[in-house]
């Protein structure tokens, strides 16, 4: 197990350097001179240009620049945003809780519906329930979520007026945001209606973001369950006279979860890609919207740093899933 862990960590290093290199390269490939973009409409003098160029290190050889970037990254220095002048690192982690909160609720939504749907479909294989659930799942899987978001806004915000269209909380509530998680802060603030408001803002984006994971989880759970239900130990469980709910929900699902959890972990990238669209549509102040805005503003340090941090985030989650795999699969754990 330790050996496996070490080997796994060892492959992490070159991937990390590669990811850094790619995000480093983008700033030099993006069209337009970043310094001129920084100057904006006003333009600048030759001396000022040279000064800034030296300040950003653009006058030195490229490998030196990369080395400095890499060492900077390891110390948590990703440069400053051209637009806000704040360190990219700080901006990322002040916005990250919003994305995390949205992703957690999206995942809860996906799991709460996807796991039972997959189990029910597998148990009723080939029957009406199976077909209905799996057809629905395939529709969800094929859904252009940016359109799905607009559709939900038309129905729930436009026609029914149940949910707000954008933001995280109504403007009448004001409190400082220490944890960054609006739901937790709203509870802490003790203001009446704050939590309800936060949840009402959260529900549509979470549903939109959770739709594709929901479909993936339902499909994966069904196929994993079908495989498990044919195993000998399920027959043993039935021979013990256990009720079907216990056989399907504990004996079979526990085994079926092993491949499903892997799929869930690997869908974190999909989740973050979905967050880009969801946050843009719902004006959700998270990482996804920040990245899109920065791309449009040509805020290169942010694009560069954000790309890197997101990739590292995905890599860390994948690593965790690999390690978690050992925990949920006893066959690996104790060998």
């Amino acid at each position, binding site marked *: 197990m330790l050996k496996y862990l070490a080997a796994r960590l060892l492959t992490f290093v070159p991937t990390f350097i590669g990811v850094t290199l790619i995000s480093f390269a983008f700033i030099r490939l993006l069209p337009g001179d970043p310094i001129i973009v920084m100057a904006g409409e006003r333009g600048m003098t030759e001396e000022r240009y040279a000064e800034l160029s030296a300040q950003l290190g653009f006058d030195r050889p490229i490998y030196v620049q990369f080395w400095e970037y890499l060492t900077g990254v390891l110390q948590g220095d990703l440069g400053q945003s051209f637009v806000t002048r704040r360190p990219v690192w700080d901006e990322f982690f002040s916005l990250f809780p919003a994305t995390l909160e949205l992703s957690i609720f999206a995942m809860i939504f996906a799991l709460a519906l996807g796991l039972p749907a997959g189990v029910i479909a597998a148990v009723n294989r080939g029957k009406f329930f199976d077909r209905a659930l799996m057809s629905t799942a395939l529709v969800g899987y094929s859904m252009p979520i940016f359109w799905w978001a607009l559709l939900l806004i038309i129905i729930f915000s436009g026609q029914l007026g149940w949910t707000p269209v954008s933001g995280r909380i109504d403007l009448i509530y004001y409190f400082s945001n220490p944890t960054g998680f609006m739901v937790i802060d709203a509870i802490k603030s003790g203001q009446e209606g704050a939590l309800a408001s936060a949840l009402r803002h959260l529900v549509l984006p979470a549903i939109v973001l959770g739709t594709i994971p929901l479909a993936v989880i339902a499909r994966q759970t069904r196929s994993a369950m079908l495989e498990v239900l044919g195993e000998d130990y399920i027959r043993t469980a039935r021979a013990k006279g256990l009720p079907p709910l216990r056989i399907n929900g504990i004996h079979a699902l526990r085994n079926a979860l092993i491949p499903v959890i892997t799929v869930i972990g690997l869908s974190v*990238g999909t989740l973050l890609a979905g967050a880009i669209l969801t946050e843009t549509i719902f004006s959700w102040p998270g990482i996804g919207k920040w990245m899109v805005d920065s791309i449009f503003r040509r805020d290169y340090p942010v694009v560069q740093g954000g790309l890197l941090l997101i990739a590292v985030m995905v890599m860390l989650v994948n690593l965790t899933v690999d390690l978690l795999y050992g925990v949920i699969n006893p066959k690996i754990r104790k060998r």
Partner: protein
Amino acid sequence: MSDTLSAEVKMIQNRPGRLREFWFYFRENRGAVFGLWIFVGFVLLAAFAPLIAPHDPSAQFRAFALRPPVWQDGGTWRFPLGTDPLGRDMLSRLIVGARYSFFVGIVVVAVAASGGIIIGLVAGFAPRWLDAIIMRIMDIILAFPSLLLALVLVAVLGPSLTNAMIAIAIVLQPHYVRLTRASVLSEKQKDYVTSARVAGSGLIRLMFVTVLPNCLAPIIVQGALSFSTAILDAAALGFLGMGAQPPTPEWGTMLAEAREFILRAWWVVTFPGVAILVTVLAINLMGDGLRDALDPKLKRS
């Protein structure tokens, strides 16, 4: 003795061709056949779009801006699905939009698959160190969320449909590399490859003639899946303003243009989305059918 011989001959004659056998299994999945028919309709629509579309997709009928579909008050048969804010016919734009989506799908799959298959074959046959380098590079690409990487790539290359297709192809390509390499590694163990090698096949022949045809089944399934992913991602890029640029009647771009009217004119938002959903759904249905028909594990003996 002669009995067994004749039985063998008969068996060979009776054995259905590969295509017939494939069709037999594919036909069992009714959803897949349904998806296939929709896909055929989609392809025909894309092929004959200018002949079918009632209007020029970019012709603006200013007097008829934001007309609802024909079944609603104020709709006319002249514009069966209504008009957009500039008075352009929705139906015509949707029909011509099928062209772009189909084009995106074909080009992306062709580029990503051919590139991915070649790199995957190389990785599968290469010495250990080269294989490791190739796979690490693929890991690096896969560490970025696909849409984000495509978005940044398009920002580098400049927003256009062509650049969006290039970006999506680059992002999808590692999946083909991994898939091809995995099948190559398992096929390479088998005796027929050894016998071909012993018989003196060169490396190139071994790669493309001996091994590749036996790895194709999962790649074909992946092709169907990435066809739909390509359409979805291109539409998402168009929606974010980083794909096809207005006034191109690309479905995602149409949605982006229609966003501000969502609470006033539901049809300008609804129809492009339905078009994307139905197309992607049909392809995914087909993909499921392909997988069931090509995967020998799931075949009934």
